[in-house]
């Protein structure tokens, strides 16, 4: 029985790691620009498909297919696809900021909500025109043989996702806390006006925040594709869960968002073990409950004082 729990915990952590990456992205744009990219779901899907296309092209195959052969993901090609998807999604993030967010940010009103959702719908249509609606099977670079850890069966991709997510988040945490650019971002998060008095180019920092946030979504898309298979409709669900994770953790606290993402992933996987059809009901019921008692999220206020 213990092995089943361990298995559930590990796959919950793996999906939670993906939620955490995306939730961190939500937090990065929210703290620096007070806006959110509601096209984040499409960035995840796009990331997955850019990854698919890169894997195929790098292996000398045609750019589209219904399944990626397993040798195409081997060796250096998968890491290259992860980085490539991150970079392309990052550039798209700059576009969405310039075209759909900056015209409305800081002017009050919620126009940026509609404009980012609209940007996402446009992206999805473009994606459908390029890749079509069918899901694409993506192989894991580590193969699909189930590993046994203390009796628990774990897919190697789940461990890879978890490891990548944790590494990326530790790296970003160090950048935010130790480097000058990180401190500048924290300054912008606290007050763009005061940050500009430090000679910080606030606009550039905000562009960087959107590039980073979108890049994380793109990376998350390629990481999750071998588990969920790539589809232009996959991103929405992940983005919604990640957003919930960010809200539970506290949008204004990047670390809290990471914890929130993991909590949600493990919770979801735990409830799924008990009653799969109750999963969403229990998860979102709990989210509402948490918010009723901690409106700023579990880590919302406390961390701001401590950091």
């Amino acid at each position, binding site marked *: 029985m213990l092995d089943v729990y361990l298995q559930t915990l590990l796959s919950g952590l793996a999906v939670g790691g993906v939620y955490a990456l995306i939730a961190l992205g939500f937090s990065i744009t929210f703290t620096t620009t007070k806006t959110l990219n509601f096209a984040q779901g499409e960035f995840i899907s796009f990331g997955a498909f850019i990854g698919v296309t890169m894997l195929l092209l790098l292996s000398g195959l045609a750019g589209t297919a219904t399944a990626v052969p397993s040798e195409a993901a081997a060796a250096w090609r998968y890491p290259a696809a992860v980085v490539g998807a991150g970079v392309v999604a990052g550039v798209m993030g700059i576009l969405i900021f310039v075209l759909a967010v900056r015209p409305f940010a800081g002017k009050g009103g919620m126009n940026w909500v509609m404009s980012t959702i609209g940007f996402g719908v446009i992206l999805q249509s473009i994606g459908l025109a390029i890749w079509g609606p069918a899901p694409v099977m993506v192989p894991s670079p580590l193969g699909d043989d189930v590993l046994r850890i203390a009796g628990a069966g774990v897919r190697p991709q789940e461990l890879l996702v978890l490891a990548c997510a944790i590494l990326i988040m530790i790296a970003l945490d160090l950048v935010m806390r130790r480097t000058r650019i990180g*401190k500048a971002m*924290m300054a912008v998060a*606290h007050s763009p*006006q*005061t940050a*500009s008095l430090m000679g910080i180019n606030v606009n550039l920092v905000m562009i960087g925040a959107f590039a980073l946030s979108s890049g994380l979504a793109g990376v998350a898309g390629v990481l999750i594709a071998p588990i969920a298979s790539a589809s232009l409709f996959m991103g929405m669900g992940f983005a919604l869960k990640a957003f919930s994770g960010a809200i539970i953790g506290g949008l204004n606290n990047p670390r809290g968002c990471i914890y929130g993402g993991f909590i949600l992933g493990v919770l979801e996987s735990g409830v799924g073990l008990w009653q799969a059809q109750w999963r969403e009901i229990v998860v979102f019921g709990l989210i509402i409950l948490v918010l009723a008692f901690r409106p700023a999220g579990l880590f919302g206020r406390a961390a701001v004082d401590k950091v």
Partner: protein
Amino acid sequence: MLKIQNVHLAYGPISAVRKASIEVEAGEVVAIVGGNGAGKSTLLKGIAGLMPVSSGQILFEQEDVTRLPPHRRVARGIALSPEGRQVFPDQSVYDNLTLGAYFRRLSNDALEAEVEEQFKLFPRLRERRNQMAVTLSGGEQQMLAIARALMGKPRLLLLDEPSLGLAPKIIQEIFDIIVSLRRSGITILLVEQMANMALAIADRAYVLETGNVTLSGTGQQLLHDPKVRAAYLGVSHGTA
């Protein structure tokens, strides 16, 4: 050094400063005094670039900076210690100071040396070096805000209400520092409600009333001007 010509600043439809013209010569301490809501802070925000100027011109060292974004004005040598101090509460005293020199891209050693200079001027900050700014007292936060502005090596320092909310003893300390800064050659434009203290150290001063410059002269002239005494000094004398 600084020449403001017919500058108009507005919050939406509401004018906060109307056709203000002010000059600051290199090496001077110039004070802007006036009551609450007279537009003093707004004028400083306009000079720093935090608020768009709707008409008029701001010249700094003979160059037009009217449309420059704030971070480029800082790089030109205009630093603002803002109203309400606005230190970064969740960053340490040291990090707050280094942020003040952010745009100068100094090496870590050079930064360390410049922070040390500020600690000489503000010894109390040295003791608080690694504390989060939020844990500092109001007076210490004000010192940090001024030191942070100085980290940008400005030629013109804008001080917005440095006495706000501080005890008389601390205010005296802050004003002593302003006097010593002037001796070191920095030009200072000081906005204050504590008119008597500001006028006492100012070479020249302007009185701002509901967005209009109504009076100007040397600090001493205004300090003894019957209108100024009645309007500002009578009120602030007891608290200073």
